[in-house]
């Protein structure tokens, strides 16, 4: 195993973290062969340096600590893929938005960064490239599966069926990698290509070593993760105590992870997802809430406070929402039927269609469906898009 770590200064945007100290610290880890500090990892020069690092040191797994994975994650994924490293063996650490920008106190931020990097190194150390990970869907370890069929019942996409040998079978065309099956499996025998319980356990063990107390683990769905990025930019000292592990959906959190976290000494666990109707992967949040309620009972039976485990949805209301032009709207209510997030409702009292701004994710389904053309998505109106196309066509000719 040869692990490389890239620490990016983000052109000076990560300024309150002592990256040289972190390099010294990481260099002492047994699996880490090289720690590289770059001024701008995403620039062509930075990318070349990462490629050179992988080639010259035979790196087979890589930690990139830079901006949020939502900003440059795809770039780094395609870069390591180009270098022949499987994307499951890449771990992106959000040092900028959720650490350097969020935590004003330099010491707390450094401790948080250290734990984040420890978690990443541990996850990669536990990661196994055993061939199944070329699959792009959930994988069931049939050697340990007891054929309880819970995954078949719970899969929101009906992607799991009963095979002829009695074991569940995953239809790779239907599987959306939401992880709801993984979250519900009582034996924890289901994995996703980049989300395995064993690896997550390793991350939890490292988070428990945090000196910032209380130590809290957060399992955040992509939507909640994006919300944290948004608010953390303007400072969020609470993140010094919270160690976020991104999950594909709140429904993907298996309660064995909660037990492991508590037995490792984690003080609190937050599972963050979407509000009732807004789960993009359908039903994941409902499953998460049910499982949490059951687990809270178990905690009480173990004489532990149920408050240690909590479900949260933030609804920061930071995205623009669809706007309905009442003058044109015919109240046909088709938009209510097509909205995947149930964010539109009809008010009998006012005889108006109303958009819940916290529920609307601005996907544009209603805009495309409205027969009267009464719904607009801010900054994506027909006029704006057609004008841009016009500019591009003029340039082409």
């Amino acid at each position: 195993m040869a692990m490389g770590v890239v620490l990016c200064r983000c052109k000076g945007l990560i300024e309150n973290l002592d990256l040289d100290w972190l390099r010294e610290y990481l260099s002492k880890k047994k699996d880490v062969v090289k720690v590289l500090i770059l001024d701008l990892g995403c620039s062509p020069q930075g990318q070349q340096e990462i490629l050179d690092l992988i080639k010259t040191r035979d790196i087979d797994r890589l930690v990139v600590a830079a901006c949020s994975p939502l900003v440059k994650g795809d770039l780094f994924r395609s870069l390591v893929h180009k270098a022949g490293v499987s994307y499951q063996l890449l771990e992106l650490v959000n040092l900028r938005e959720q650490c350097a920008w969020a935590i004003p106190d330099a010491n707390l931020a450094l401790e948080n960064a250290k734990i984040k990097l420890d978690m990443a190194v541990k996850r990669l150390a536990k990661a196994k490239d055993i061939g199944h990970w070329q699959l792009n869907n959930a994988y069931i370890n049939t050697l340990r599966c007891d054929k309880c069929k819970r995954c078949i019942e719970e899969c929101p996409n009906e992607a799991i069926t009963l095979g002829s040998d009695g074991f569940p079978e995953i239809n790779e065309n239907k599987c959306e990698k939401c992880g709801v099956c993984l979250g519900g499996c009582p034996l924890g025998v289901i994995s996703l290509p980049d989300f395995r319980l064993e690896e997550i356990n390793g991350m939890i063990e490292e988070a428990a070593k945090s000196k910032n107390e209380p130590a809290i683990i957060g399992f955040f769905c992509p939507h909640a993760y994006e919300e944290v990025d948004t608010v953390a930019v303007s400072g969020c000292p609470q993140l010094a105590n919270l160690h976020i592990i991104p999950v594909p959906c709140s429904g993907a959190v298996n309660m064995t992870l909660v037990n492991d976290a508590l037995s490792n000494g984690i003080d609190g666990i937050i599972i963050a997802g979407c509000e009732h109707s807004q789960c993009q992967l359908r039903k994941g949040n409902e499953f998460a809430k049910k499982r949490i309620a059951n687990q809270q009972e178990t905690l009480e039976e173990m004489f532990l406070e149920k408050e240690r485990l909590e479900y949260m949805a933030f609804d920061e209301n930071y995205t623009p929402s669809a706007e309905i032009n009442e003058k044109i709207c015919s109240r046909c209510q088709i938009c209510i039927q097509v909205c995947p997030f149930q964010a539109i409702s009809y008010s009998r009292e006012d005889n108006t269609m109303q958009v819940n701004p916290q529920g609307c994710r601005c996907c544009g389904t209603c805009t495309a469906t409205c027969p009267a053309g009464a719904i607009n998505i801010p900054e994506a109106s027909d006029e704006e898009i057609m004008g841009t196309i016009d500019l591009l066509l003029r340039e082409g000719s």
Partner: protein
Amino acid sequence: MPTRLVFCKSELCGTNKLELKRIKLDFKKANLEFLEMDDLCGNIQEVNKLKGDLVFVGCSGKVIKGKIDESNKRIVFANIREECLWLYNDEETIYREVLLEIRIALHRLKFKKTTERVPLNCFRNKVGKYIEIISEIGPNPFKV
């Protein structure tokens, strides 16, 4: 007030290679004001003092958007760094693409609204409250 085109001239990003004269020439008929800054990321406070309609010509909006104060302003990003400078080697192609990016940004600016959507701070409030509760309960007994 004319729309301001704020050019980021960063050596590390390569945006300092652009000749502003040539771009100015192309937009001489438009009511635009040209501003140059050594490095937008390093001068966020200066950037936030700018008022009115602004087009930031530099990197992708994702990189520094969070740090920029958008209240009562109309701001659009023309991403010439990732979309032009880092993508092409030929100088002519770069200039053509840069001009196109700026034209598209100016077009998008017409539709931009100044309405502000301030985050509700649910995250800070909820997590802050949760940390207080956990601190009150005390450390996890398994920790010992």
